[in-house]
């Protein structure tokens, strides 16, 4: 009897937790499907009475935010590629070669310490640099800063993956007379595929979500990213709720989809490799 009561109680608690958790997201999606007329109902409605995709059309086409979406993708992909290449160049020696323990620890700790750097403190001098060298309101400025800021994550994730590839496999190739570069290219690189992909997805998702740097370093749709555009919808004089919600949904869809693919690695990435999915 008592057991039954505990079960019901825990079920109830979990149900409430799920409801509190899901409801705001549900309401976001619902709002993004409402017509303009429905927005001005005296009491906000919980279901769209005449579901429409018009807000999405309005955001992407009328407000031309598809261009910002494109900027986000370009900046994200380029920054991810750059971060992965640099991270790999740093992780290869510290995991495959006998680099001194002190140096290795220094590199890893330094990378972790970047996690503590407050972006606003960095963007203040960076803003001056970017203006001075003529990169203000240009995507390369963003690509560069995104790559630098996601480097720690990329380093720690790749380090974890590379450590799991046995040294013996590469050594076998070396013994057979292959050069180190050849062994790297034909043995290690193919084996690192999964790790690179996983780290790439997580890093890309972070680039995609970034707001502050893009907000300060860009000014026009030429280089603005999608999150900056979404923020613009929020603070406009008259708030168009359904467009704003549609913008929110669009911003959410991509990272959530990527997360579903890379779900085994999300926590590994967020905790710098401490939590490992078995």
């Amino acid at each position, binding site marked *: 009897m008592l057991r039954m009561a505990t079960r019901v109680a825990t079920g109830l608690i979990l149900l409430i937790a799920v409801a509190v958790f899901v409801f705001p997201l549900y309401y976001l999606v619902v709002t993004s499907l409402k017509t303009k007329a429905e927005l001005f109902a005296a009491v906000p409605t919980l279901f769209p009475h005449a579901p429409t995709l018009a807000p999405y059309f309005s955001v992407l086409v009328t407000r031309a935010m598809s261009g910002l979406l494109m900027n986000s993708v370009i900046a994200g992909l380029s920054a991810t590629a750059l971060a992965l290449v640099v991270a790999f160049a740093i992780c290869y020696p510290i995991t495959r070669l006998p680099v001194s323990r002190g140096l290795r620890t220094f590199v890893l700790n330094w990378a972790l310490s970047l996690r503590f750097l407050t972006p606003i403190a960095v963007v203040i001098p960076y803003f001056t640099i970017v203006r001075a060298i003529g990169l203000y309101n240009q995507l390369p400025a963003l690509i560069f800063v995104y790559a630098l800021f996601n480097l720690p994550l990329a380093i720690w994730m790749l380090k974890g993956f590379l450590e799991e590839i046995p040294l013996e496999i590469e050594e076998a190739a070396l013994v057979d007379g292959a050069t180190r570069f050849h062994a790297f290219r034909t043995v290690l690189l193919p084996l690192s595929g999964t790790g690179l992909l996983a780290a790439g997805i997580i890093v890309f998702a972070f680039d995609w*979500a970034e707001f502050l740097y893009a907000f300060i370093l860009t000014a026009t749709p030429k280089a603005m990213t999608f999150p900056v555009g979404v923020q613009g919808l929020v603070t406009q004089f008259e708030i168009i709720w359904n467009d704003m919600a549609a913008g929110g949904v669009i911003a959410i869809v991509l990272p959530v989809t990527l997360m579903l693919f890379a779900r085994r690695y999300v926590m590994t990435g967020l*905790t710098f490799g401490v939590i490992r999915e078995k």
Partner: protein
Amino acid sequence: MSLAARARTNWSARSRQERLGLRLLLPVFGTVLVIATIPFILAVIRATTADDGRFIGIDNFTKALGNTQLYESVKQTGVYAALVLPTEILLGLALALLVHRTVKSVALRAVIYVAAMIPIVIPQIAIGVVFRLVYAPDYGILNALLGDTGHNQILWLSSPPLAMLSVASVDIWQWTPFVYLIMFAGLQTVPVESIEAAQLDGATSWTQFRHIELHYLRPLLLLVIFFRIADVLRVFDHVYVLTGGGPGTTTEFLSLYLYRVAFRFSDLGQASALAVVVMAAMTAFYTLISRFLPAEKG
């Protein structure tokens, strides 16, 4: 066998390989290190020179540190941290224990696992949008659910004590699942034998947690605190969307204050001084707490 131990068996090979390692590592890492340090140096230079390039010493620093608004924003950040950190940790831990003890279905656990990851990967800006739809007056769904849409509806985002709570609640909504996931992962590492032995000895649920599970969770709790502090100190996006730091400056956290000085008042001299102080303080703080970190030291 560790790399070092392996290499010790062959001294000549080791020194050759070690040289190769340094040759590969140092150019790349050195460049990154320099690039990452440049903003700090430039901030120091900018903070100590006037607009016309004259050296003005520490004037900007005294101005920045003499501004009471700075301490106000530090205080608000502290209040925010004091609200969100304990709540997220206790709630996340409680939920992890609850699911760990009562949900045995593998499929259900997998569903919870994926669902809990959703808020973590949502861009902060979108989180701001989501909660504007919840808390805003007139259109916000919370007041509608409370049956309040008239003139005396609750102003969740624009009345002083409430705005802080609303903004904090968003953080709690987004990051409790993160704590949950880490704690749940930690609970899976507790050896079944010790739990079974404890239960044979008649341990209650609480003693089982207090004396066995907590022992395994302690390093992870430190990890959670580490990452959450790093995030709380930089919080900007969702607050900017929800309150913009207001009403007044009641939710103006450190990042929002620096933003205002640099880009609203365009006082780049003072802002650079602030940036230097914040970067130095964060580095010191990191050095202080990183020694407690369970993360592998390399």
